C-alpha cells in the first residue's frame, strides 16, 4: 500500500497538466470539479498510504520510494524519491484533506470569474508543490516544492491583478521569500559539505555527528528560511498584504499549508537542531514568542475581516515556532493540525461573509449577520471558540500543550504566550461580535457617503443662494429704473401744469373775439387734460417703484433664507450622524432621514442588495471543518498515555529529540485552569466592550498596538524607496557614475587618448576609457606583489 505514495503529489500534478492542456475548453464548473476530484483522489491515496504505514511496526514506519536517480554532478547524487514516515504522512493528510475542501469551496466562491479554470490550475499546482515539499526524500526536492509554492502563491495572490495593490502584494511575497530561499540554499550547501548528502535519511544518521558550530549555522540559516515562509519576525510583512488574493487562496496558503512549511522544515531537521547550540534553538522560541505577541496586538486594531485573520495566523505560527524552539515537536505538529482546521474554517467563513456581502471586507460595516447567514455564523463561532482556547474545542488542547512545554523551559516565555492567548481570545471575540452580532450595519451610510450627500445638498442650496443674489441685483436695478422713471414722470406733471398755467394765462389775456382765441381755448383744454394724464402716469410709475421695492425686500429675504439654509446644512454636517470608527454592537445607525434623497448611488444600490447565505459548495466545507475544529483535540488528549495518538504516531520521526517534561499533574491542572480563565476573561471583556458598550473600544484599540503594521509600512517604504533606488543606483552606477568618473579623468588622459576622440564623441569614448582604466586596475592588481 505504501507504493501508492508517488500518487499523492502526482494526482494534483495531473490535474494541473490536464487544466493546462484543456482548461480553456472546459466550461466553468467542470474545471473546478476536475481539480477537486484530483485533490480528493490524492486524499484517498494519502489515506491508503497512511493505513499501510500504520499497519507496520512503529520502528519500521520509514519507507523510501525512489522514482529515479538524478545526478547533477559527479559524486553528488540526488534521487527523485519520496520519504514516507509519520511526519510526512501527517502533513499530507491535512494538506490533501483540507485542500479538497478548499477546492470544493472555490467552485462556489470563484463562480462567474472570467479566469475560473486558471484559478484551479494554480490551485492544483500549488497542492502538488506543497506535497512535493513534505514528501520529498531530500532537501533539494523540498526546495523545489518550496520554490513551487512560492511561485504559485505569487500567482494566486496576484490573481486579481487588475488592481495595483494585488500585483505589488504578490511582488512583496515573492521578494520576501527570496530572502528566505537564500538561507535555505546556504543551509543546504552547508549540510552537503558537512554530511556529504542532502537526503533526509543520511542527514538523520549524520546529524548527531555534526560539529556544533556547523549545526548552529545550519539551524540559524534554516530559521531564516522558515521565518520567510512561515511569516515570522522579521520577514512576516508579506502575509497581511497577501490578503489581496481570493479568499480560498488565503485559506489554503495562509492557514493550512504554505505557511506551515517553515515549521515542517524545522521539525524535519530536528536531529540538526538537536546537535546545535542551545541558544540558537532558544532563539527560534523567542522569535516565535515575539512574533506571536506583536501580531496579536496588531490583530486587535484591524478592521478588515481578513487582515485580523492574517495577523492571527502570524501570531499562531509564532506559537508553533515557540514550540519547536523548546523541543516540543509533537505539540507543534498538534497545534499545526488543529490550527489548519480552525483557521481554514475562519478564512473560508470570512470568505463566505465577503461573498454574501457583495465583497465588503470592513467589519465596521457588518454586524447582525448571524440571522442572515446561519451556517456561516454557526461554523465561524466554532472556529472562534477553538482559536480562543475554550475547552473542549480543539485549539484549547493543542495550545495548552504548547504552553505547558514552554512553561517547563522558561516561565517568561510562557507568560508571553499567555498574554498572546489573552489577546487572541479578545480580538477573535471582537471579530465575531462585530461581524455576526449587534445591529446590522451593512446598510448603514458610510462616512464618505454622508459627506457626499452633504456636498450634493450644499450644491442645491448654493444654487438657490446664487439665484436669490441675482434676484436682489435685478430688483435693485428695477428700483433704480423705477426711480428714474418716477422722476421723469414728475417732471412731466410739472411741465403739464406749467403748460396749463400758460394756457390759462393766455386764454384769460386774450379776448374771446380775438383771432386765435379758439386755438388757445383748445390748447387750454388740451393742457388741462394733460395734467391728469401726466399725474396718472406718475401714479403708475410710483406703483411700479413700490413694486420694485417690494421685490427687493422679497429677494433680500430669500437671500437671508438661503444663507440661513446653507448655515443650517453646514451645522447639520458638523453635527452629522457619527459613523462609529470603533463600532460596537450598540452603535446607533447613522440617521440620514434628513438627506436621504441626496445619498450617492452606492448607498442606494446597497439598500437594494440582499445579503445572503452562500451555496452548498461553500457551506459544506465549512460544516466539515467546523466538525474537525471542534473534535480535533481527540488526536492527542493529555489525560492518558494511550490517548496521545499523535505523540505515539510521530515518535519514530523525532528520534528522541522530543522534549520530555517533568511537570507534575498538579502544575498541569493549574496551568490549564489559568489558560481557561484567561480565555474566558478576555472573551468576557470583549463582550463587555463590544456587545454591552461598557467601555469605548477607542480606549482599547490603541494605535500603538499596530507596531507590526508600522514595521511593515517602514519596510515597504524602505523597499519601495531606498531599496528600489538601490537597484536604480546600481544601474546608474553602471552607466552614469562610471562614465562620469571616466569623463572626470583629467584632460591629460583624454589628449593622450586623443585618437579615441576621432571616433565618436560620447559613449564609445567613455567606454573605451573604461576598458583602459579596467586594464590598468587589473595590471596593478597583478603586480601587487611589487608594492606589497
Amino acid at each position, binding site marked *: 500500500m505504501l507504493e501508492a505514495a508517488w500518487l499523492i503529489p502526482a494526482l494534483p500534478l495531473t490535474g494541473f497538466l490536464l487544466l493546462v492542456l484543456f482548461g480553456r475548453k472546459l466550461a466553468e464548473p467542470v474545471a473546478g470539479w476536475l481539480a477537486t476530484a484530483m485533490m480528493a483522489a490524492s486524499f484517498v491515496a494519502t489515506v491508503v498510504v497512511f493505513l499501510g504505514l500504520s499497519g507496520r511496526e512503529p520502528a519500521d514506519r520509514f519507507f523510501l520510494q525512489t522514482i529515479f536517480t*538524478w*545526478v*547533477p*554532478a*559527479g559524486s*553528488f547524487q540526488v534521487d527523485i524519491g519520496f520519504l514516507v514516515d509519520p511526519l510526512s504522512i501527517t502533513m499530507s493528510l491535512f494538506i490533501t484533506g483540507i485542500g479538497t475542501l478548499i477546492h470544493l469551496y472555490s467552485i462556489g466562491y470563484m463562480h462567474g470569474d*472570467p*479566469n475560473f479554470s486558471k484559478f484551479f490550475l494554480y490551485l492544483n499546482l500549488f497542492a502538488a508543490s506543497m506535497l512535493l515539499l513534505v514528501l520529498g526524500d531530500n532537501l*533539494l526536492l523540498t*526546495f*523545489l516544492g518550496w*520554490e513551487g509554492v512560492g*511561485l504559485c502563491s*505569487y*500567482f494566486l495572490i*496576484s*490573481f486579481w*491583478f*487588475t488592481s495595483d495593490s494585488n500585483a505589488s502584494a504578490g511582488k512583496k511575497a*515573492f*521578494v520576501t521569500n*527570496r530572502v528566505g*530561499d*537564500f538561507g535555505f*540554499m*546556504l543551509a543546504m*550547501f552547508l549540510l*552537503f*559539505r558537512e554530511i556529504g548528502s542532502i537526503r533526509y535519511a543520511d542527514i538523520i544518521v549524520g546529524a548527531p555527528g555534526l560539529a556544533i558550530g556547523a549545526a548552529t549555522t545550519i539551524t540559524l540559516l534554516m530559521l531564516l528560511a522558515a521565518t520567510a515562509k512561515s511569516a515570522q519576525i522579521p520577514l512576516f510583512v508579506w502575509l497581511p498584504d497577501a490578503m489581496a488574493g481570493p479568499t480560498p487562496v488565503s485559506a489554503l496558503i495562509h492557514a493550512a499549508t504554505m505557511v506551515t512549511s517553515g515549521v515542517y522544515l524545522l521539525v524535519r531537521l530536528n536531529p540538526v537542531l538537536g546537535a546545535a547550540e542551545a541558544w540558537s534553538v532558544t532563539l527560534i522560541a523567542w522569535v516565535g514568542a515575539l512574533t506571536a505577541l506583536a501580531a496579536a496586538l496588531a490583530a486587535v486594531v484591524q478592521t478588515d475581516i481578513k487582515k485580523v485573520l492574517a495577523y492571527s495566523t502570524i501570531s499562531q505560527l509564532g506559537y508553533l515556532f515557540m514550540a519547536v524552539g523548546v523541543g516540543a515537536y509533537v505539540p507543534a505538529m498538534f497545534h499545526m493540525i488543529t490550527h489548519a482546521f480552525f483557521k481554514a474554517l475562519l478564512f473560508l467563513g470570512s470568505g463566505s461573509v465577503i461573498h454574501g456581502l457583495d465583497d465588503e471586507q470592513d467589519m465596521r460595516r457588518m454586524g447582525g449577520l448571524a440571522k442572515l447567514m446561519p451556517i456561516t455564523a454557526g461554523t465561524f463561532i466554532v472556529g472562534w471558540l477553538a482559536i480562543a482556547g475554550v475547552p473542549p474545542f480543539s485549539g484549547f488542547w493543542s495550545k495548552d500543550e504548547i504552553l505547558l512545554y514552554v512553561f517547563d523551559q522558561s516561565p517568561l516565555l510562557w507568560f508571553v504566550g499567555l498574554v498572546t492567548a489573552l489577546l487572541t481570545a479578545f480580538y477573535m471575540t471582537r471579530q465575531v461580535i462585530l461581524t455576526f452580532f449587534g445591529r446590522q450595519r451593512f446598510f448603514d451610510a458610510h462616512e464618505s457617503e454622508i459627506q457626499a450627500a452633504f456636498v450634493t445638498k450644499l450644491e442645491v442650496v448654493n444654487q438657490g443662494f446664487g439665484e436669490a443674489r441675482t434676484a436682489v441685483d435685478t430688483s435693485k436695478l428695477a428700483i433704480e429704473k423705477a426711480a428714474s422713471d418716477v422722476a421723469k414722470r414728475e417732471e412731466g406733471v410739472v411741465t403739464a401744469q406749467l403748460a396749463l398755467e400758460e394756457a390759462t394765462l393766455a386764454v384769460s389775456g386774450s379776448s374771446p373775439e380775438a383771432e386765435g382765441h379758439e386755438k388757445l381755448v383748445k390748447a387750454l383744454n388740451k393742457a388741462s387734460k394733460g395734467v391728469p394724464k401726466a399725474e396718472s402716469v406718475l401714479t403708475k410709475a410710483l406703483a411700479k417703484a413700490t413694486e420694485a421695492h417690494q421685490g427687493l425686500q422679497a429677494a433680500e429675504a430669500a437671500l437671508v433664507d438661503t444663507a440661513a439654509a446653507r448655515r443650517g446644512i453646514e451645522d447639520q454636517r458638523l453635527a452629522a450622524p457619527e459613523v462609529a470608527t470603533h463600532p460596537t454592537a450598540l452603535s446607533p445607525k447613522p440617521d440620514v432621514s434628513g438627506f436621504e434623497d441626496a445619498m450617492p448611488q452606492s448607498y442606494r444600490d446597497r439598500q437594494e442588495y440582499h445579503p445572503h447565505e452562500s451555496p452548498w459548495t461553500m457551506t459544506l466545507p465549512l460544516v466539515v471543518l467546523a466538525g474537525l475544529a471542534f473534535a480535533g483535540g481527540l488526536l492527542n488528549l493529555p489525560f492518558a498515555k494511550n490517548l496521545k495518538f499523535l505523540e505515539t504516531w510521530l515518535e519514530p520521526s523525532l528520534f528522541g529529540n522530543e522534549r520530555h517534561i517533568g511537570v507534575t499533574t498538579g502544575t498541569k491542572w493549574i496551568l490549564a485552569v489559568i489558560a481557561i480563565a484567561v480565555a474566558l476573561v478576555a472573551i468576557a471583556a470583549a463582550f463587555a466592550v463590544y456587545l454591552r458598550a461598557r467601555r469605548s473600544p477607542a480606549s482599547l484599540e490603541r494605535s500603538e498596538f499596530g507596531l507590526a503594521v508600522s514595521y511593515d509600512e517602514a519596510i515597504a517604504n524602505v523597499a519601495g524607496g531606498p531599496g528600489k533606488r538601490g*537597484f*536604480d543606483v*546600481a*544601474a546608474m552606477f*553602471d552607466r552614469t557614475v*562610471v562614465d562620469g568618473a571616466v569623463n572626470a579623468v583629467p584632460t591629460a588622459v583624454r589628449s593622450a587618448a586623443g585618437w579615441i576622440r576621432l*571616433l*565618436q564623441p560620447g*559613449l*564609445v569614448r567613455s*567606454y*573605451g576609457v*573604461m*576598458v*583602459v582604466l*579596467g*586594464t590598468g586596475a*587589473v*595590471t596593478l*592588481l*597583478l*603586480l601587487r*606583489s*611589487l608594492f606589497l
Partner: protein
Amino acid sequence: MNTLFAQEAQIPDIEWSLIWPLLILSLAGVILITITSLVPRTRTGSFPAAFTAASAITAAMFIPSTVARVNDQQLVNGRAEFYVLARSIAVDNFTLFITGVICLAVAMSAFLLDDYLRREGLESPEWYALLMLSASGGVLLASAEDLIVAFVGLEILSIAVYVLAALHLRRSESQEAGFKYFVLGALSSAIFLYGIALVYGATGSTNLRGINDSMFAVNDRGLVPAQDSSLLLVGIAFMLVGFAFKVSAAPFHIWTPDVYQGAPSPVVGFMASGVKVAAFAGFLRVFLYGFSDLQEEWLPIVAALAVITLVVGSFVAVVQTNIKRMMAYSSITHAGFMLIGLHSATKDGLGGSGGPEILGSSAILFYLFSYSVMVLGTFAVITVMGRTGDGQHSIDSYRALARSQPLLAGLFVVLLFAQAGIPFTSGFVAKFRVILAASEDQNYVLAGVAMLAAVVGAYLYLRVVVAMFLEDETDDAVDVAAADAGDSEPIDVPPAVLTVLVISVVVTLALGVLPDLGGSFLDNAAATLTQLRD
C-alpha cells in the same frame, strides 16, 4: 633563392584529418560565396541557411571519429591529444567538445537568421559565410596551443561578428551596435596582442608549453627574477583583459548591453552562445595551461571579476525594461557563473584528479553547453517577438502572450525558468554544479555570491513570465495603446524558428532531468582540461 626556400622552409607534417571541422567551416564559407555569386540573388531562397546548417552538421559529424582516435591514442601512450601544425593546434577532447557546441550554435543561428533576413528583406549569402568563418575562428581559438594562433582565431571570430552585428542596414541601432562593438573590440584586441608580445618577451615563447616550461625553469632556480616576472605579469594582465572583454565580464562588460540591444536578434543569439563559448575555451586553455604556475597571482583577480560580474549582472538586470538589454545583463551574470567554474577548475594542489578541479572544469563545460542551447532558444523567441523592424523588445510587448500564442509562451517559460535556475532544467544543474565546485574548492565567498546572484536574478525572468501569463485580460487602455503603437502585426512563428525553439527546450529539459546525458564525452573533455599541464 628558390632552392634555399625549399631547404629552409620545412612544411610541417599536417594531419589534415584531425582538423576536419575547422577546415569544413572555413571552406564552406568560401564555397557558399562562390556558389551564390553564380546564381541570381533572388533565387537563392533558403539555400544559404540550409547549406550553413548542413556544413555545421557535417563538421560536427567528424567529431565522434576524432574522439575515438584521441581516446585510442590515450590507450596507446597515455596522452589524449594530438598536435597539428607544428604544435600550434591541439586536438583533444576539450577542443572537440567546444567544436561540437560551436557547430550546434552555428546550425541553430542559421535557422534563425534565415527567417529573420527574409522578414527584414536583407537576404544575402554573405551573412552565412561570415557566420561560418566566425565559427571557424572560434574553433581555432579553442584549439590554439600557441598564442599567435589564439590571436588569429580570436580576430577571425570577432571581425566576422562585428560585421554581423551591423547587418541590419536600415536600423541605425544595428549600425551603432556594430560600430561600438568594433571600436571597443579593436581596443581589447590591441591590449590582448600587446599582452602576447609581453609574454613572449618575458618567456621567449608563444607556445603554451614553451611558456609553461620557461616558468618551470625560472621556478627551479628559486626565486622568480622580478624583472621578467613583472613583464610577464603585465602580459598576463593584458591577456586577461582581452578574454574578460570577449566573455563580457564586468567591468569589461560595458559594450554588452548596447550591442545586444542594437544587434539583430539571431546574431545576438550567436554572440551569447558561439562567441562566448569560444572565448571561454581560449581563456581556459591559455590560463589553465600556459599560465598555470602563476595562478596564485591571477586567480584572485578572476575571483574578483567573477564577483563584480555577478553583482553587476544580476542587480542591474532587475531594472531593465528592454528584454534584449535584460538578456545582455543576464548573459553577463551567466559569465560570472562561468568564471567561478573557471576559478574552481584550477589546480591548487589539494587532492589528485577527481578533486575540485574536475568538478570545476566539468561544471564550466556543462554550463557553456547548456547556456548556449537555452540562450539560442531564448533569442529565437526574441527574434519572433521583435516583429518586422526588430524593434519590439519592451517587456510590455510580451503581455498576454500566453493567450495569443500559448505554445510560444509555454516554450519560452521553460527557457526562462532554465535561465533562472529552476530545478529540472539544465540551468539549475549548471548553476548547481558551479556552486558545488566552488564550495568543494572551499571558496565559500564565491559560492555565496553565486547563490545571491541566483536568488536576485530569478526575479527578472519571473517578470517576463508574469507579463506573459498574468497580465492578460489587460485593461482595454493598454490594448488600445498597443494597437495605436502599430503593435497589431501578428506574431508569426516560422517552422524553422519553432524547430530551433523545440530543440532548445527539449535539450534544456533533458539535461535538467538527466544531467549525465553528455556521458563520458563531457567528462573526458573536463579531464583533458585538468590534465593539460601534466
